[in-house]
């Protein structure tokens, strides 16, 4: 099971001038997952990424990437990572081709022709082949981001770390980034931080939420979206539902019914203790009442924004 872990942190923390940027963090990222790392500004996401890359030193705790210690074996760690910083900065006098060649030479010793071929492959992949020999100083934000994604992939990384990869992109750029991440899932693990919750919900399979330097949740996205109140079914009904409600309340597997009225209809949120029993009987019990019409039935799915806000605001209230 441990072999399956790409990133493992144990009580990893970082303090800057007495201020805890990251409180002791235990994180596990599994192989071939797309791991969304969420949190408001200043939550400690970038600090965690920089700790993994050896750009800052831990105050306490430890972490490993592919079994290599992030402090003692930092070169081995970085050899297997492709990294796109939040605001990538390159040498402005270099062209896109020179930047990719410079990056590739940290990972490959040769032969030169193969390195050039790899550079050309990446230029094609990120759509910069026609601008390959132009100095970067004339590049737009989108072109810079494409170059950033390209340089992060030049070594065919086992782990791709992206810090806010879509923050400065237009919708098409965002879509391209998500497509690249999805394609990489088969051979790489993607660890990325973002504020854009829609993107996380679309591509991530596991999510961790950080708030004020502290981990408030880490779970597979389906588990997180199912909510913290157990299994909940949502039933939208029209008409007088008092009898049906009384009938359902009497079932031993029904824990609670929460009703959200909405003009001529209402949404029932039925918490159950036995999902199988609910699946088999719930709809049938409601439909037994001839006075009501069911317009929607299904397992309640929260969206990530609801979960995120609930967790962050709940965490803030506790402090």
């Amino acid at each position, binding site marked *: 099971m441990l072999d399956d872990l790409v990133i493992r942190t144990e009580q990893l923390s970082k303090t800057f001038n007495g201020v805890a940027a990251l409180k002791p963090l235990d994180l596990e990222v599994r192989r071939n997952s797309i791991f969304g790392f969420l949190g408001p500004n200043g939550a400690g996401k970038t600090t965690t990424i920089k700790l993994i890359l050896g750009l800052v030193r831990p105050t306490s705790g430890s972490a490993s990437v592919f079994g290599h210690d992030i402090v003692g074996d930092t070169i081995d760690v970085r050899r297997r990572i492709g990294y796109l910083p939040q605001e990538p900065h390159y040498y402005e006098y270099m062209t896109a081709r020179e930047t990719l060649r410079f990056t590739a030479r940290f*990972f490959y010793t040769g032969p030169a022709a193969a390195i050039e071929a790899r550079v050309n492959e990446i230029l094609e992949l990120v759509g910069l082949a026609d601008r390959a020999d132009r100095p970067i100083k004339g590049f737009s934000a989108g072109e810079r981001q494409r170059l950033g994604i390209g340089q992060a992939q030049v070594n065919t990384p086992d782990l791709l770390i992206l810090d806010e990869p879509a923050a400065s992109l237009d919708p098409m750029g965002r879509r391209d980034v998500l497509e690249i991440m999805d394609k990489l899932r088969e051979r790489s693990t993607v660890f990325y931080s973002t504020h854009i919750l829609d993107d996380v919900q679309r591509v991530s399979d596991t999510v961790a939420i950080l708030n004020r330097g502290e981990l408030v949740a880490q779970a597979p996205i389906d588990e997180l979206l199912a909510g913290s109140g157990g299994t909940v079914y949502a039933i939208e009904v029209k008409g007088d539902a008092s009898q049906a409600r009384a009938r359902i309340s009497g079932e031993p597997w029904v824990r609670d019914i929460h009703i959200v009225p909405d003009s001529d209809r209402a949404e029932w949120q039925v918490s159950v203790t036995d999902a199988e029993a609910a699946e088999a009987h719930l709809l049938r019990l409601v439909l037994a009442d001839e006075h009501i019409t069911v317009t929607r039935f299904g397992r309640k799915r929260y969206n990530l924004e609801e979960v995120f806000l609930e967790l962050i605001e709940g965490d803030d209230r506790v402090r």
Partner: protein
Amino acid sequence: MSASAALEISTRHGWLVGFGNMVAKEYASWWRTRRAVVHLLLWLFVINAFILLIGLDEGPAGGRNSPLELLEELIEIFIRVGGLFATIGIVVATQSTVVSERQLGTAEWVLSKPVSRPAFLLSKFVVNGASFIWLAVAVPATVFYLQTLLHAYVQPALLPFLAGMLLHIQHLLFYLAFTLMLGTFFHGRGAVSGIAIGFLFGGLILPSFFPWMTGWLPWALPSLAAMAAQQQPLPAGSVIAIIISLLWTLLCILVALWRFEREEF
């Protein structure tokens, strides 16, 4: 066959991993941009054009000096005055080498790749040093060597002149190491260049009040360089002063490496 199949993956380890690639990058920043040409023209203008003016004023046409006296004067000016400009030049040219990479975020990006911090820093010392010495010492010194024929009708003896140039280079390398070291401590160019140039001018003023300082700091090198190039015997204790200067350079590099290893990006 895909390109990736033929690629040889680097497995290098050690404290200088990535050094070769960093050297190539630093080299390109000098020689594949206009930077080298600008420096070449600047130093030819500042040093050799200045010597030309002095030579025309004080040369045989002026008739105030004998050829040998004029040669000694020109060597003195070349090393002391030209050297002063070159020292200020190396501080200004390299003041932002570390600072701006840190501020712009390029250092963070590069150091996220498999490259060691000593390789990052030492490549800057090696390439900036070699490039600057080539452009601000080797070329102007060669031109000067030919110029002396024009002005004084004699040339300096080659080996003593080269010995003088070596001491001049040693002086410049100290200021390069000192500037890089300051760049690892301070986050602003002003502090880096201010302290380095302040130290340089301190070397011109303070020894008048505290002569013992000259022997313990790299301030004696310009005068020793001029004396060597003029074939004058070096005063007693010169070798120790030269060795101490070398040790200061080494110390600056070691401190810079120590500090940079602890830098957080």
